[in-house]
């Protein structure tokens, strides 16, 4: 009983200092993902310049809870909502927000008519850049291992583009299309899968390249290649996202040659601009706003 009372008192203390007025709710199930985190930090920085109050809500992987938290935010009568989740899965919440006249902006989410706009990087272009990089580096011939993750739509589209590009080179053979288990972060299982593929293809030069739809599998593949002592075979590895660990690996000028840096901070700031426009009643014509990306290689990985 005492404990319960104490908890209630701490709850009161926790919230007593916060002001009543709320303006923008940012809701995502993926705050643990570095990219989402950076985009939301970018949004918060831009929002603080605009003197907004931001409530960041992480539902820790639970998509239905995003709908619940959108409903709670509507009850609170927030001025705008930002979501970083596939909008098709939270349609009920978006519909309720529309009925309540509250604008919803997507932050690296997906396109949906119920969103004012989605601010993101061009996933098709990123996948095209890395797969063409590989095709050119291996001179249009050789066996390629692909690491994909079709369960998550923004990553799934990268795989589709890479499939199309490799399919357009008659002498490129996709040796395996691997979906790693991402529950451990994606590196460990990718390494295990790559070790098995290397064991099945023991001849030097039998694998020309590894294309990964994001950086973690690329890092796992790199570890497997180095662990098997096959780093001298010239296996080209590319990733997408250019996270700090990937940048370090690329800077060493080894097998991991390229990745694509998304500017998540700029994405957050651009989303804040869209929110500002929506709150002021301005018309938003472009439904998807792409933030520029940059290829990271050994030449610029340290920057």
């Amino acid at each position, binding site marked *: 009983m005492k404990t319960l009372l104490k908890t209630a008192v701490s*709850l009161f203390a926790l919230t007593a200092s916060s002001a009543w007025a709320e303006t923008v709710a940012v809701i995502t199930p993926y705050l643990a993902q570095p990219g989402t985190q950076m985009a939301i930090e970018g949004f918060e920085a831009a929002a603080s310049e605009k003197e907004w109050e931001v409530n960041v809500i992480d539902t820790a992987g639970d998509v239905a809870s995003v709908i619940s938290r959108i409903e709670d935010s509507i009850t609170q009568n927030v001025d705008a909502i930002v979501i970083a989740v596939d909008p098709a899965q939270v349609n009920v919440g978006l519909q309720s927000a529309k009925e309540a006249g509250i604008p919803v902006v997507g932050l690296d989410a997906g396109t949906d008519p119920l969103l004012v706009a989605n601010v993101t990087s061009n996933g098709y272009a990123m996948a095209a850049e890395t797969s063409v990089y590989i095709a050119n580096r291996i001179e249009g011939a050789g066996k390629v291992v692909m690491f994909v993750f079709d369960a998550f739509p923004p990553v799934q589209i990268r795989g589709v583009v890479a499939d199309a590009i490799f399919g357009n080179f008659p002498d490129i053979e996709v040796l395996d299309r691997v979906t790693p288990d991402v529950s451990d972060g994606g590196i460990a299982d990718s390494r295990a899968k790559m070790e098995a593929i290397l064991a099945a293809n023991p001849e030097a030069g039998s694998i020309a390249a590894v294309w990964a739809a994001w950086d973690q599998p690329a890092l796992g593949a790199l570890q497997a290649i180095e662990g098997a002592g096959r780093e001298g075979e010239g296996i080209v590895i590319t990733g997408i996202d250019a996270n700090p660990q990937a940048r370090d690996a690329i800077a060493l000028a080894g097998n991991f040659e390229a990745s694509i840096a998304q500017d998540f901070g700029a994405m957050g700031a651009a989303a804040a601009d869209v929110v500002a426009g929506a709150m002021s009643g301005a018309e938003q014509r472009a439904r998807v706003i792409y933030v520029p990306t940059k290829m990271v290689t050994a030449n610029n990985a340290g920057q």
Partner: protein
Amino acid sequence: MMQKLRQSGTLLGFVLILLFFALKLPDTFLTARNLINISQQLSMLAVVATTMTIVMVMNDFDLSVGSMASLSGIVAAMIFTAGYPVWVGLSAALLVGVLGGLFNGFLVSVVGILPFVATLGTLTVFSGMAFLLSDGKTVFGRDIPASFSGFARAGIEIGDIKIPMLTITAGLVIFICWCILEHTNFGRRLYAIGGNKEASHLAGIKVVRLRLYAFSLTGLGAAGAGLMYAARVASANPTQGSGLMLDAIAAVFLGMTMSRRGEPKVIYTLVGVLILGVLDNGMTQLRVDSYVREILVGLIVLAAVAVASLSKLRQA
């Protein structure tokens, strides 16, 4: 005195939580709209938790309910994708729930594996099946019929208030579970098994068969909750039900602190579900940090169970 404190402590805590939010959020918390929102948000957890109560009255566990919820959503979605009518998808998904539950029951009561171990194994099996069937993809968009996802948006209008179908469905499931456990011989026998399996067996209760039935009902409930979840998010994902399992167990444990002998009861489980849902809703509205919210929810569950446990020790 300690007995009373143990029984009423959690309920009193719930009332205090309600009062706290009502005072802090005078304009938004106790409104009809917000209460209906809470009821709808909790509907899937309520179904899983109340059907989980059925196995927990026998001192058993089912850790596979979250995976089963994901699997049932995927089964329905794959059948929709193949062009079959909605009722076929729903029936197949519920049948998968019953069969999965029966398999759990078989492992626990016939093979004799501890429920924790058996259902931990089937958790992985069901999850793998969901991934295999869906090829790891989220099924959404035109593959999900509007009449299915529309169920989550529909409701019965009473004056200005619209009671969501998800809330009504959860209410029906709770009522049926309450009737089964409190007003049938089947339910009383399950409680007897929970009291003493050996004695129940010697008294002529068909323990093996009843445990099979109980697990299949829990599987059916998990599959039903999975369908409700899939309708709510208008999509099916091989991991989407995984968060339900721990919350359901927490709700049953919270409820157990309110009963006289510490046994699970459907109505008390419902209070446990309400505590979790109200905390989530109220703290979101108060803009408490998501992670602080998780810590507080965990601490409240621990506090309630600790009070119950301490009072039991004193009694002994």
